[in-house]
């Protein structure tokens, strides 16, 4: 079924049009048009904003802001976002990355949302036409949100502090068994002074591994130091089951992949 599209120069006008029943915001369309092609009739109209500000990446001082319409391909090739390139390249094949936006990835249900996992570890702020909120709060209520995401912003991670892995069966572009992003900071003596770990596919949306994060504090990055964090990695998780992996399998392999990521 064809879906009438309305394009607006401003987010404000797009937001007003989005209030109509049956309308959905169009990012890159890789999920929303896929659903329409599959026969999802819950959506009858699409709305988008063509405001060029939505496609801008700004790096100023230590802060990085990525417009909601910026694609994974644009992030992967940006000279100052090298640390994030791995997470952006984890999303689909080349054509998908040319279309998939950051804004859309925030709404992608598991097993998708690999870049959102990175943004959660980065403690990003999500800006919408309704105001700004931390990633975690945004993810918690994303289903009911009618707001338009305009950008995400975060503090540039210290060199070498950001780690990311996407575990998949089909290389190079299979969907995730799970994905993990971590930001680790170490004190002068090598002990971990701060840790943020985000997991993909371990719930219906990206989540923090808070018990594992706490278990790392004051410890060293070696097999003994991370043992209690690995034991706690599954705390609070409710992994998804899909054709790629069962919840049981995901729970079994999470500590293995987290361990490899921490010791890499």
């Amino acid at each position, binding site marked *: *079924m*064809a*879906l*009438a*599209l309305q*394009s607006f120069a401003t987010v404000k006008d797009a937001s007003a049009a989005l209030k109509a029943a049956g309308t959905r915001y*169009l990012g*890159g*369309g*890789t999920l929303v*048009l*896929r659903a*329409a*092609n*599959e026969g999802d009739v819950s959506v009858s109209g*699409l709305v*988008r904003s063509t405001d060029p500000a939505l496609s801008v990446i700004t790096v100023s001082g230590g802060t990085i802001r990525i417009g909601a319409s910026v694609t994974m*391909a644009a992030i992967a090739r940006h000279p100052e976002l090298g640390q994030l390139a791995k997470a952006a390249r984890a999303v*689909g*094949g*080349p*054509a*998908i990355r*040319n*279309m998939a936006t950051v804004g859309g990835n925030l709404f992608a249900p598991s097993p998708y949302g690999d870049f959102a996992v990175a943004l959660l570890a980065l403690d990003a702020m999500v800006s919408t036409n309704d105001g700004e909120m931390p990633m975690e709060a945004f993810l918690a209520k994303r289903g009911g949100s009618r707001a338009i995401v305009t950008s995400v912003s975060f503090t540039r991670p210290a060199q070498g502090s950001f780690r990311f892995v996407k575990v998949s069966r089909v290389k*190079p*572009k299979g969907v995730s068994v799970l994905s993990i992003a971590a930001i680790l900071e170490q004190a002068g003596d090598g002990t971990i002074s701060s840790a943020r770990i985000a997991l993909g596919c371990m719930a219906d949306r990206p989540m923090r591994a808070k018990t594992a994060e706490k278990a790392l504090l004051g410890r060293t990055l070696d097999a003994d130091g991370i043992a209690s964090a690995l034991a706690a990695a599954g705390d609070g998780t409710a992994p998804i089951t899909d054709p790629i992996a069962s919840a049981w399998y995901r729970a079994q392999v999470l500590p293995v992949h987290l361990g490899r990521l921490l010791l890499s």
Partner: protein
Amino acid sequence: MAKVPVQFTLNGSEKAEFVESGTTLLNALRDKIGDTSPKGGCHQGTCGACSVIVDGELRLSCLTLAETCNGAAITTTSGLAEGGVLHPLQRAFLDAFATQCGFCTPGMLMAAKVLLDHTPDPSRDDVVEALSGNICRCTGYEPIIQAVLTAARANSQNAA
């Protein structure tokens, strides 16, 4: 359903059509304009058979709305041969038996063309990565990978 005007350049020629709002680029190309080189395989973004090049970037025409391509330059497999002479990629696909039923071939050619446009001398890994969004049910991929590498070598020899 409201009709909207869509104008773009297709393989170097200006096209102007009215399409129903919400029409995919794949349907506009095939049903309205009559360029049937992009194939509809899955309509889910998974197979890559519908891949076309929009303003230099590989895109899935089944997940792209025609009306978002206003003013764009679009290349499809129909535009590869020039003056009746096959593009080096098409020649290499034929020579290497990289096409069997041929359903995936237009999408493969588009993905390979974008790769060679940006990376004239790709490694095998570059080729695998570039074709990773395209599914082939027949060839086992190896002949396709070899064909792209052969076309790249032919190109670099021509350039030398």
